[in-house]
Every structure is written in structure tokens, then in C-alpha cells.
């Protein structure tokens, strides 16, 4: 197969194993492209893409924009601050107004879960989800899995641990879907108050003992505490959280094997992960960022071939 089974990238949930493999294979080629002296190919020169960021972002926004520019697409950027959203315009109206200026593809980040699915049903354009509330962040999960495969090979029967604020994390959900489709086993770990109810229905293990969970995994993804999504405290104090779930060098060295450390960023150094660990050889955090551009190029290239 050389085309995706979907016309939008709304979440990993909607992709099948062949889609994942095709995206990874295509990313290999784009990774080669972005390591050339001239990092640009003309594939999408007749495609216009709007980046609609209704929520803050550094990495994802820059990564998408670089990927678009390296595919020679035309790019328009939008962020909700300073826009007509504050004047009371609805999401559909905002997007339809932008689309009437002949935009072919929309990359959207929004604080409401399901915003991208909603848009795909209501506007006539190709939608890419760059994070919708606490729901999914598909390109992040794709680049996580791609970076991990690059480091440790096939993920079949590998054990992957996700630690931290699972409740508010869209990365966690997309991670779970991706790793499971690739045949890996997923465990989540964190304070009970930050583990969503009914998560076991997704076939993931729950472990509240951090060190025990670490000893059983091949790779760990350390998530940030999403304070901006918490209206009330979910745990007594940051200090207590760090003591129970913070990853430091001593814990890492005490494990029975060398595990891979991932982080989707932004890092809160000294909270979920210490600087020493984040900057160590076991961490692939910057590889993840590098691969993000290749993954996003692949996704947009594959979706663009389905336009018209």
C-alpha cells in the first residue's frame, strides 16, 4: 500500500498498522532530505496550509511550519491571541473564512477535545490535529514511536511506561494507541488522582510504584504536570510529586537495565525529570524533536496526495 486509509489526521485511533508503517517509511526518506545541504523538495508547491493555533505551542508550531516550508508549501499562521476569536467568532466561521481564501489543508491546535473531528465533519478541507485538549496529539505520538524504533528497533512485545499527568495529557492517549498498534505493551504510572478512570478498558496496566514500573519497562515517557488544565490541586505538593514520580540519575542507575528516556516537551527541569537525566545519553529528547519535522513532512505529503 502506498496511500493512507484516512483523508485527515485526527487521531491515532483512526489509523491502522499499515498507515503507521507507511508514515514511518516515508519519514525515513524525509529525514534524509532534511539532512541534505539543501533541505527542500518541491512536492507541495501548489498546496496552501493554514496553521491555526488556538492554544500555545513552541515545538509543534515551529516543527509544522518548518516541515511545510521544506515541502515548499505556502503557509499562513494564525494564533488566537489578537484574532477575531476574541470578538466572538465561532470556530467553524473562523475556519470557513480562512478556507474561502483557498487554503487546502488546516493544521489545528485547540483546547477543546474533539475540535479537529468536529471541523473535519463541518468544513471542506484536509484537517491535521496538532493537539485537541486532553484528547489526542497524533504527530507527537508518531514521532515518539519513530524515535524509539530508531533507537531500539521493532516495538513488538516491548514494554513502554508513561509517567505523570495521564489525566490531562493528549500525548498519553495517542501514545497508548500508537504503541499498542505496533504490538508494544503500555503501562501508565502516576498519582492515582492523575490516572483517568476506566483507563484499564484500553488494555493498559496501571502501576503506582514508580521504581517497580521502571524496572519492568524498556522505555519511559516522562510527561509534564499540566498545571494550566488543573482548576484544583490533584496532589499535595510539587515537592511530594518529585519525591514519588521524579526521574533522577540515582533511580536510573539503580535499575536492572538501561532504559530509554523520552519527553514530549516542554520539560519542567527538576520536576518530572532532572537536568542530569534529560541531558544524558539515555534520553532521546532532542532526537524526538529532530524526527518531528520528518514525521510531519511525511504526514502532510501523504495527505496532500489525497487532495482533490
Amino acid at each position, binding site marked *: 500500500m*502506498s*496511500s493512507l486509509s484516512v483523508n485527515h489526521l485526527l487521531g491515532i485511533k483512526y489509523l491502522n498498522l499499515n498507515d503507521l508503517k507507511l508514515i514511518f517509511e*516515508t519519514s*525515513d*526518506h524525509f529525514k*534524509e*532530505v532534511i539532512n*541534505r*545541504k*539543501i533541505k*527542500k*523538495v*518541491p*512536492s507541495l508547491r*501548489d*498546496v496552501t496550509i493554514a496553521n491555526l493555533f488556538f492554544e500555545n505551542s513552541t515545538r509543534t508550531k515551529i516543527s509544522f511550519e518548518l516541515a511545510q516550508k521544506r*515541502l515548499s508549501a505556502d503557509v499562513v499562521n494564525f494564533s488566537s491571541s489578537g484574532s477575531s476569536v476574541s470578538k466572538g467568532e465561532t470556530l467553524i466561521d473562523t475556519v470557513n473564512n480562512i478556507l474561502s481564501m483557498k487554503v487546502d489543508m488546516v493544521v489545528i491546535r485547540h483546547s477543546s477535545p474533539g475540535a479537529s473531528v468536529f471541523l473535519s465533519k463541518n468544513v471542506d478541507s484536509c484537517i491535521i490535529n496538532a493537539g485537541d485538549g486532553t484528547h489526542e496529539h497524533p504527530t507527537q505520538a508518531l514521532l515518539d514511536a519513530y524515535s524509539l524504533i530508531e533507537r531500539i528497533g521493532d516495538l513488538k512485545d516491548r514494554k513502554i511506561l508513561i509517567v505523570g499527568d495521564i489525566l490531562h495529557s493528549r500525548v498519553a492517549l495517542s501514545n497508548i494507541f500508537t504503541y499498542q498498534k505496533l504490538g508494544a505493551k503500555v503501562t501508565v504510572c502516576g498519582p492515582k488522582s492523575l490516572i483517568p478512570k476506566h483507563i484499564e478498558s484500553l488494555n493498559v496496566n496501571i502501576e503506582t510504584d514508580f521504581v517497580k514500573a521502571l524496572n519492568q519497562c524498556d522505555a519511559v515517557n516522562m510527561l509534564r504536570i499540566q498545571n494550566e488544565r488543573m482548576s484544583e490541586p490533584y496532589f499535595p505538593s510539587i515537592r511530594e510529586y518529585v519525591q514519588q514520580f521524579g526521574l533522577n540519575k540515582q533511580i536510573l542507575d539503580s535499575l536492572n537495565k538501561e532504559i530509554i528516556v523520552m519527553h514530549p516537551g516542554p520539560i519542567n527541569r527538576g520536576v518530572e525529570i532532572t537536568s542530569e537525566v534529560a541531558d544524558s545519553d539515555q534520553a532521546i529528547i532532542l532526537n524526538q524533536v529532530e524526527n518531528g519535522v520528518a514525521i510531519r513532512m511525511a504526514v502532510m*505529503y*501523504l495527505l*496532500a*496526495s489525497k*487532495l*482533490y
Partner: protein
Amino acid sequence: MTPKKILNANELSTILHRLCFQLIEDHNDFSETVLVGIQPRGVQLANRLLKLLADNDKNNKIDLGLLDITFFRDDFRRNEKSLKASATKLDFSIENKTIILIDDVLFTGRSIRAALDALQSYGRPKSVQLLALIDRRFSRELPIQPDYCGIQVDSRLNEKVKVNWNENDGEDSVYLIKNKE
């Protein structure tokens, strides 16, 4: 309609040898010349030529690169089929080198146009030449002609020229296949 055999293994072998000697005549020891096969089907031809050149002079080391042109094609999104990329492998500098682009069939010339574009991402070669095993001479859509040509074939647009290689297809041969209308 049954496919028409244009070349058998012996004829193909003769042509490959002739192309080799033409290359040696023009490029001596290949110190300033590199071969670049266009993915996917030009690579097999390039590998064959490289082997023959090596047999002829075992001390001579000739660089061979593989060039994928998928992302540079002008029929992306105009073609029903999705385009699948192959690997590019150019682990030498092409700066100031003479490049011999190698493809099995030269048809509309659009692949070669894309290849010229793709090469620019790697530097500025001194010159670029084109070697094609089959030249479908009446089908060109761009002003592109081969510098080295195996055989010229007169064909219609609805026909297809298929080059088979022993390594992949079980025999060395070239067929003219008529597609259904």
C-alpha cells in the same frame, strides 16, 4: 495482445558492453566522473554497467549513487496512483564532477527533468550527461535527449516498454507491451 520482445539476453548484453566502451572512451579512468542511477529501475542498469566497467579495469574505483526523484516529480497530485519514494544514496560530493544519469527507459523526459532538479540539492556538478537503455524517441514532452543510448524504439503512447533484469525478473530482456485501451 502478446508482448513483443524487442531485445533478448544476448542482444542486451551486446548493448551493455557497447555502452560501457563508449563511457570508457569519453571518461577514461572515471576520476572526474560519477554514475547516478535513477530509482528504482535505473539503479539495476547502473549496477550492471558498474560491474562491466569493473570487470574491464579491476583497479578502477567508480562511484555510483542512487537518486530518488519522487519528491521532485511534477505529476504529484495529478496522478491517480500515489507515488512511493525510494532511498537516495549519494555519499560522495558531486561538486565539479561530471555526472552520468542512468535510467532504463527514456519516455516523456519528465523523470529526467525531476532528476536534474533533485541533483541540485546536492551541489553543482560540472556537467550532467544522460544514459538511457531504451529511447522511446517519438514520445518526448520536454527538450531532453540522451547522450548515450542503447536502442531507439518507436512506440505509441498506450504502449509500455518493460526492461527485465535477471536479478529481479528471472531473465534479461526488453518487451513492448500494449496496454488495454
